[in-house]
């Protein structure tokens, strides 16, 4: 069970010697078992915030505490370990390896996790493929799948190392209404299963599924 806390988060870029503030005085708390929707206009810093929570970026000033630990102070290798153990990512563009099959894509994050040996990795992969209803497609390559199916593979991959936190950046941005509903339902069921799910979305549908909507 993870708890995320953001304290006085500020993020600014310097472009052409001019400071551009992306995020200002952000104070937020995220808890396990809930689905959070982050909404806002383009350029409001939604994706930046998600990347900071996911330890892929950092605040100019401020703290991000995950289970009480300030992740910004961590060394790069420790942040990598934290991502592997606790965070799963889902992207708008899916970012599947086009030269790997469905099962190879899902298996990829598990190779660096010591808790899986070859057998348990295979078993977990099969279970995840089953969870996202893609068993007949396990040997298929991403280009042979529809957008909705690719996003389900990406969700299964995000769950590979059993993370407590799922970060989804516009997960339904490239999907039709039916697949959008399916993906939101899937994310909602993950939050009900005890995970902390944070979704950045432009879609007004997020309000129907989120326990809390944060406007930036």
């Amino acid at each position, binding site marked *: 069970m993870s708890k995320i806390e953001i304290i006085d988060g500020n993020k600014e870029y310097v472009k052409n010697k001019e400071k551009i503030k992306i995020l200002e005085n952000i104070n937020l708390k995220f808890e396990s078992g809930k689905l959070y929707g982050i909404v806002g206009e383009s350029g409001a810093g939604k994706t930046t915030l998600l990347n900071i929570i*996911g330890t*892929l970026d950092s605040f100019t000033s401020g703290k991000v505490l995950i289970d009480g630990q300030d992740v910004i102070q961590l060394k*790069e*290798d420790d942040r*990598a*370990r*934290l*991502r*592997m*153990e606790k965070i799963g*990512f889902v992207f708008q563009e899916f*970012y599947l*390896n086009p*030269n*790997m099959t469905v099962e*190879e894509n899902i*298996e*990829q*994050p598990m*190779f*660096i996790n010591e808790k899986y040996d070859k057998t348990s990795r295979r078993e977990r992969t099969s279970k995840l493929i089953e969870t996202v209803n893609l068993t007949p497609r396990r040997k298929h390559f991403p280009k042979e799948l529809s957008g909705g199916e690719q996003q389900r593979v990406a969700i299964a991959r995000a769950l590979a*190392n059993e993370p407590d936190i799922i970060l989804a950046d516009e997960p339904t941005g490239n999907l039709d209404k039916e697949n959008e509903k399916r993906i939101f339902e899937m994310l909602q069921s993950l939050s009900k299963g005890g995970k902390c799910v944070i979704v950045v979305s432009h879609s007004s549908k997020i309000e129907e599924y989120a326990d809390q909507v944060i406007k930036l």
Partner: protein
Amino acid sequence: MMKNQIKSVLRNKSNIIYIFTFVILFAILNVALTIRPLVDQYFDNIVEEYSNTLQTQLNKISSYENIKIDELAKTIQISKELTDEQKTEIENIKHVERLEIQKIDLEGEEVHIQYLYLDDWKNFEYVNNRLDALGISGSPAVLDEQILESYSTIRNIANTIQYLLIIVSLLVIIVCCRNIVKNEQKNIKLLQIFGYKKSKIKQILFVEQITMLIIGLIFGIVLYELLYFLLVHEMLNISVENNAVMMVAINAIIILLPAFLSIHIKTLKS
């Protein structure tokens, strides 16, 4: 993990083009490594053939029976100082192309050595008999300078071509490897997101590069052997003894260096 990564790299169609390029480059590289031994062997064969034929001719002349064959040439050396009249007579002998006089300073004493250049070494016997008739004794001079000169020139050209081809092959392979890694940028980012450490990602990239280069090397050697057999062995009828240790070492360097350099590009520094 490596198995999946390598499968993924080999399934990537753009990498097939790079592997094909490696095949060609490794074939060229190994041809380049054979050029100098080939030139050496070619001239050894010429000299051997030349000496053997000259020996056959000289066997007809009893006085030269014991002369070492590698000291023979189409040049006759006359150590006795000639008069102007003798010089004119010698220059008028059929098959004599020119007469050259070399002055050597031996501890203060000037020694004149005359070289008679013939149009063909086959005419050695005829010219030597004419010299005998004039009361001038001659002996075969050392190996033909023209052969030595052309050998030296061609050897220098071969050396230059060899080094150029090695450098060009190495540079092209380095550029290809860097491009392969640049094309993997998306996957590198993904691995970073999954929590792979940089050292692990570098290790994966290194193994991927090495795999592609080794595939290129294997097919490149096959292509080289085919070219060698058809062009050198069959057409020129020369068998070259390569320095196997040097060839293995250079091929190994050309595999390891680009692979090592390619994993240290900017994409991994962020």
